[in-house]
């Protein structure tokens, strides 16, 4: 569904310097595949998501989504960021409806679906609350509902649970998997957490820093649906050891 071929992105900073954020990234993602990206901070993970969404142009190489070259934003995509970035003046329900509204659709026709999504993510009954009346985890659930409402076939998630405490984080990962089992889509998911990357993914893409490159792509053979128990599977430990050694070996080498 997504094909990145030899993608490079070089930014020009305001002072005029060139910063190569990612280099030579080749990655093919299948329809309905769950792919996670792990790597040190600054290795270009956010950049990759923005490139795939067409928010910023590639410097070299090509990106195709469903056989169409990406040159500008396209609407079949949902975005979730590290911060929920909800609209503080809108109720929870109206925040969820924001996506269809910005897409130019008629929000009234999506009210029922928005409520259903809130129900699905455990936020039933919170429709009329303001975001600031919700905890961080609940706000992030609203942001996920907002991304899911137009039912995009591609979901780009940039460290969506990165600002949450460890317990909420694990809960949210399992919840996301549950939602994903129910409404399949292609997910590109950036994370700092190695266990999270493995628990969620069909494949884990390990990146190295400066400039960001793909170090290795790991197939995660753990059976689905996954639960907390999956973390006790020996394959889980093997995968996480491998990811860890890839990241730390590079770090030691560059020191």
């Amino acid at each position, binding site marked *: 569904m997504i094909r990145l071929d030899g993608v490079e992105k070089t930014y020009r900073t305001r002072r005029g310097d060139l910063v190569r954020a990612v280099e030579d990234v080749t990655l093919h993602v299948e329809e309905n595949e769950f792919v996670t990206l792990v790597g040190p901070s600054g290795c270009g993970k956010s950049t990759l998501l923005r490139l795939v969404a067409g928010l910023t142009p590639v410097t070299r190489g090509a990106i195709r989504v469903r056989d169409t070259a990406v040159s500008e934003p396209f609407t079949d995509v949902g975005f979730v960021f590290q911060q929920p*970035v909800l*609209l503080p003046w809108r109720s929870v329900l109206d925040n969820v409806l924001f996506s269809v509204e910005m897409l130019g659709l008629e929000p009234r026709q999506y009210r029922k679906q928005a409520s259903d999504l809130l129900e699905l993510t455990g936020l039933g009954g919170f429709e009329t609350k303001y975001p600031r009346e919700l905890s961080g985890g609940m706000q992030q659930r609203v942001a996920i509902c907002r991304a899911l409402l137009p039912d995009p076939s591609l979901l780009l998630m940039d460290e969506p649970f990165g600002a949450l405490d460890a317990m909420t984080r694990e809960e949210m990962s399992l919840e996301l998997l549950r939602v994903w089992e129910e409404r399949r889509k292609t997910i590109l998911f950036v994370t700092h957490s190695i266990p999270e990357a493995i628990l969620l993914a069909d494949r884990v893409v390990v990146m190295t820093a400066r400039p960001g490159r793909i170090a290795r792509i790991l197939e995660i053979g753990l059976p689905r649906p996954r639960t907390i128990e999956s973390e006790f599977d020996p394959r889980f430990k093997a995968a996480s050891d491998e990811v860890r050694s890839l990241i730390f070996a590079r770090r030691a080498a560059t020191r």
Partner: protein
Amino acid sequence: MIRRRIVGDYLVPAATLVGVLVAWEAATHAFRIPRFVMPAPSAILAEGWDWRYRFLGHAWVTLYETLGGFALSIVVGVPLAVLIVYSPTLKNALYPLIVLAQSVPKIAIAPVLLLMLGHGEIPKVIVAFLVAFFPVVVDTATGLAATPPELLDLSRSYRASAFKTFLKVRLPMAMPFFFAGAKVAITLSVIGAVVGEFVGSDKGLGYVILSATSYWKTELAFSSMILLSVMAIVLFGAVALVERLVCPWLAPAGEE
């Protein structure tokens, strides 16, 4: 809990105020302070009551000048803020001018303006506007620029037009900032109007203060000052009320 709040929020300040007034009244009698130096509160009140009908006309003029200047500061300030935020070129062109306009002491401009525009209310409206528009521009521009970049990315990824993004995201996001500026602006507008009246006028509370002091009628000057303060407080409260109505999400969360 609620009782403690009533005592703390209202009773303590009210008691302090009454205490000060009583001490003031007593001091003017005990030390025989001449009334043109420091009139007793009772004398101020009596004079104000005497003037109640004449005050109405003067207060109206000052109110009109204040509101005119305030309205102008918003009508000019908000579009200026939008231009500054959306166009880096205009920002570079306008910011120095705005800062320059702000750094000239308004009291120094007032006589020149009156010279140029003559008498009447319009020059006072313009002085009030000049004093008030800076916080409106700066705060609104800050608010418009405060939208998280992720939200702008999100809007772009939904292919929403820049205008739609402005209307649905940036403008509401800037509202609390705008109101912070507007609350400063309304207070400054009162000052601007009075400064304009000081420089040359035959109407308004500023004029009453000025002419009262030149005839040693200190009671009258004091009662005009009090009326002016009440007006400023009421206007501030009105802006704060509009803010609460426009931005209900800012109200403190209800405790249950």
